[in-house]
């Protein structure tokens, strides 16, 4: 396929550092779009603030770079007004689950027909490596110089508990899985979340002595466990592991389908 067809080549070079996994995720997104044959005019990519949120600037769609944490809120309004748009939200762990956590869980509850791709790199990369809601306990960050005291969110479990219709987790090492999950998420007529673990050697790896981008991706390879296998493992055995796989895949009426029922009822009563 021709990646350049989907990219705003004139906006290169991108801002991502050597060894960053974000470009791998972007390629997965573009491969799936190409496979599904979606027209560029019919796609809107919406983001908040952070490294991952710069993705829309590089892709030739309708692109919206909003305020920190608010991509889902903006996208909700856009989807309602333009229901035929395929809306892809790209977000980081901090953007989606700290400052934007409320929008994330409520969009899941509402089951709005949106896909959120979360680039989880355990850190606020753009601002220089501050601890995020997914930084593991004890790991170092610029705002956790003695080790992070806060327990992390499990984003996929959070999305599942909040009611998302589709939730899956992959890593940038597992590109095949990532493509498959993104495709399933794009085809889901409801709120779908794909959490992708991606290395940030500059702001996280260096400080925690986890090596360069390649080392960090090899760590993903060694420490990922499929969700079926994970169910047979003890909590101790799962320490430090990345559980990958499809957490939720269910059919339920999405927000706009339910609002259609509201309209029908209102018209019936008011006729």
């Amino acid at each position: 396929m021709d990646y350049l067809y989907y990219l705003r080549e004139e906006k290169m070079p991108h801002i991502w550092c050597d060894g960053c996994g974000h470009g791998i995720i972007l390629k997965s997104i573009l491969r799936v779009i190409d496979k599904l044959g979606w027209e560029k005019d019919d796609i809107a990519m919406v983001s908040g603030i952070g490294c991952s949120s710069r993705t829309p600037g590089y892709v030739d769609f309708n692109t919206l770079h909003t305020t920190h944490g608010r991509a889902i809120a903006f996208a909700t309004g856009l989807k309602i007004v333009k229901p035929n748009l395929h809306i892809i939200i790209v977000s980081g762990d901090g953007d989606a689950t700290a400052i934007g956590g409320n929008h994330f869980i409520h969009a899941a509850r509402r089951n709005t027909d949106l896909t959120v791709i979360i680039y989880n790199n355990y850190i606020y990369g753009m601002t220089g490596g501050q601890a995020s809601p997914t930084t593991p306990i004890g790991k170092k960050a610029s705002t956790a110089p003695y080790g992070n005291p806060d327990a992390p969110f499990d984003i996929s479990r959070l999305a599942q508990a909040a009611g998302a219709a589709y939730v899956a987790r992959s890593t940038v090492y597992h590109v095949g899985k990532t493509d498959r999950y993104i495709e399933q998420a794009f085809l889901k007529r409801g709120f779908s979340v794909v959490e992708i673990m991606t290395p940030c050697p500059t702001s996280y790896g260096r400080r925690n002595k986890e090596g360069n981008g390649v080392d960090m991706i090899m760590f993903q390879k060694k420490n990922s466990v499929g969700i079926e296998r994970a169910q047979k493992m003890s909590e101790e055995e799962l320490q430090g592991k990345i559980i990958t796989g499809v957490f939720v895949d269910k059919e339920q009426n999405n927000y706009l389908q339910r609002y259609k029922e509201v309209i029908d009822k209102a018209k019936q009563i008011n006729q």
Partner: protein
Amino acid sequence: MEKKPNPNVRMWQGNVACAEGAIAAGCRFFAGYPITPSSEIAEVLALRFPVVGGHFIQMEDEIAAMGAVIGGSLGGAKTMTATSGPGFSLKQENIGFAAMAEVPCVIVNVQRGGPSTGLPTHAAQSDVMQARWGTHGDHPIIVLSPSSVRETYDLTVRAFNLAEKYRMPVILLSDEIIGHLTEKIEIPDPSTIEIIDRKKPIDTPENYLPYKMDDSDIPAMANFGEGYRYHVTGLAHDETGFPTNDPEKIRAQMLRLNRKIQRFRDDIVEVETFNTDDMDVLVISFGSTARSVKRAVINAREKGVKAGLLRLKTIWPFPDKEIEALYKPVRKIVVAEMNLGQIAHEVEWATRREKPVVRVNKIDGEPITPIEIYEAIIS
């Protein structure tokens, strides 16, 4: 013969008139969050929108409501949110986004006592400066202030027209008294209402510049999903909409952004004068307080004191020229407002402190009475 009832006469609350005015203006998307004393606007639209082809959504918080309104507008709808004090504070960052990215939308603030939780069920007019400067950075904003139920309807329509015409957020600054006041009004025939829509691009998608610098100062706006694939960001951007660090391009865009207000201020600013032709005392007010002023001016005239009222229907951009045209012959100026002098300060600036400015202020949730203003006029 029995008189036929006028079908256009309504007994409406200000908040209902706001919701109905929005529908008349073509608003078809509302996102909100419950907050007193604005909630009736959301409630009316939740009831009415499904029937008139609109969409109401109650968001998870005030910030989300403001975000959804911007997203909806980018999709091409006329969109609105309504709130009060604490919620207005929460919306500020995204209001700045709408100003920066030039996304038309209407924000209603039915003012209540502040700061903080303040007086949820009592009136205030203390968000005048917040409406102007609540979000960070030099930004354009238009703020309108209704004094009656009918005017709430009219200014809501006008708020949409100005938002669409100038591609910017417009704030309708109502207050608890006007929002909850029920009056008999006659609504205009829909065919007589002027409706303005945003300027659409005439360029092909390949040549479209969402922030084009041309003589109009107001770039054409394409809707998302209609063939114009462009980029919208809150970052400083150039004509293409993409972020830039080039000081020259940033300066040009920032000056154009703020010039929209300066250049078209005469089209935006509206005031009402009452008994100002031969006056000795000029009383300036807005919103609900202007109603008390009108009575005080009549009472003063009855006692032989030549008072006049200048009522600000537009608060920002500030009607400085209109004040300048009136204040020279007067002995003194009285400014009545339910805050500690936010408009009075602007009046002193606009009149270069050439006349004594007497302040009538109240910040306890109670309305300013005609007597209190009358005393200031005759003293």
